[in-house]
């Protein structure tokens, strides 16, 4: 996996200038980082924890930020990797606690009754991780396919097929409202 935040570079700072400036740029990015984190983690508190981990990691390895790369892409990549680490840890935990704990979050979209239509957040939370990231980066963050693919470290074709599958799944989970809207 070619994770953007481990690309080595000896070329320090450049246009990203001083560490203090970088800190302020990260402060300005916080709203977007929080938004992206919320597409990954369903719980807002977990999402903010994730942002905090990403911010701390970014500052600890600020020398890896290349002058020609966008700070936002770099930060999204770090956040993504932090999330993957987190889900791995969780995965290990969930193998012990699985059924009850996951009961609320897994399930076939088709079994959801029409009367209790899923909230958008719930529907997003049901997507497989990789689809959720594609949806989060492109549809929520508004990044181009190219940027999103780079952040996820996959070819554009992979990104678009994940996006397509994610979209399809969301459409069917949210069919009532989106379908009716036309």
């Amino acid at each position, binding site marked *: 996996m070619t994770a953007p935040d481990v690309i080595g570079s000896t070329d320090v700072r450049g246009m990203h200038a001083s560490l203090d400036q970088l800190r302020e740029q*990260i402060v300005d990015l916080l709203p977007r980082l929080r938004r992206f984190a919320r*597409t990954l983690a369903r719980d807002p508190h977990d999402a903010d924890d994730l942002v905090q981990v990403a911010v701390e990691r970014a500052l600890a390895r600020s020398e890896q930020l290349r002058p020609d790369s966008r700070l936002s892409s770099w930060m999204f990549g770090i956040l993504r990797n932090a999330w993957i680490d987190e889900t791995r840890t969780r995965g290990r935990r969930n193998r012990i606690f699985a059924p009850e704990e996951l009961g609320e979050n897994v399930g076939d979209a088709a079994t959801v009754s029409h009367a209790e239509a899923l909230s958008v957040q719930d529907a997003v939370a049901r997507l497989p991780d990789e689809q959720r990231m594609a949806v989060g980066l*492109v549809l*929520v963050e508004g990044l181009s396919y190219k940027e999103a693919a780079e952040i996820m470290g996959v070819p554009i074709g992979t990104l678009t097929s994940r996006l397509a599958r994610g979209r399809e799944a969301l459409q069917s989970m949210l069919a009532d409202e*989106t379908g009716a809207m*036309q």
Partner: protein
Amino acid sequence: MNFSEETLMAYADNELDSQTRSAVEAAMASDPEIARRIAQHEALRGRLKATFDGVLDEPPPQRLVDAARGVPAVRREGNVIPLRRRRARRIVWPQWATIAASLVIGVIIGQAFLRMPGAGAPVASRNGQVLANGALAQALSDQLASTQTPDAQVKIGVSFKSKTGDYCRTFTMHASTTLAGLACRDHNDWRVQVLAQNPQSGNTSTEGSASYRQAGSEMPRSVQQAVDDNIAGDALDAHAEALARETRWH
């Protein structure tokens, strides 16, 4: 002509080259089924944005700001006031609610504009897209930020060219609630990209009308973000704005 679902998605995501884009648009015009599928993709996108954009208007929790600024944890948790002076915060609008542009039109109209005499609804939906309507559409086409009066019902903020080469303009509109948003030229319409609502303020908020604030600071964060995401180069100055109006924003 037949298009794959991925092509239609790419259209909705603005990822097609201009040739394919035109071909899709031609197909949309003649095939309602294609138009419907694209509208569905756009509606989903609008719905997702509306769900998650709200967080943009919240001030981030202090612990995250501290983490970014490197305020040590001891100070964060203890009673000691950090020595470092906090930067003046940008104006935030926690009460702004970003509206699912493609969804809540009825709500906006109901809440804000039923009592507006004769002006009509500010937005209308066509093929799943939200288009400016009535007084809003007219202001977007005709009004110049440099010459508008402080008491104009619709205020134009910044105008700029988007990455896709279309003219876009931010606006605020005062009625029984305040709406703020970004609209971009789409043929002869103005497509509303983001719409936020501030239910707390109404007609009465003239807020020192003599020195009307610069548009940027009036805007909720989700709108500012949409500008940042879409803008190519700088905002138009008064001269460029007037020229753009002369060409009917094409």
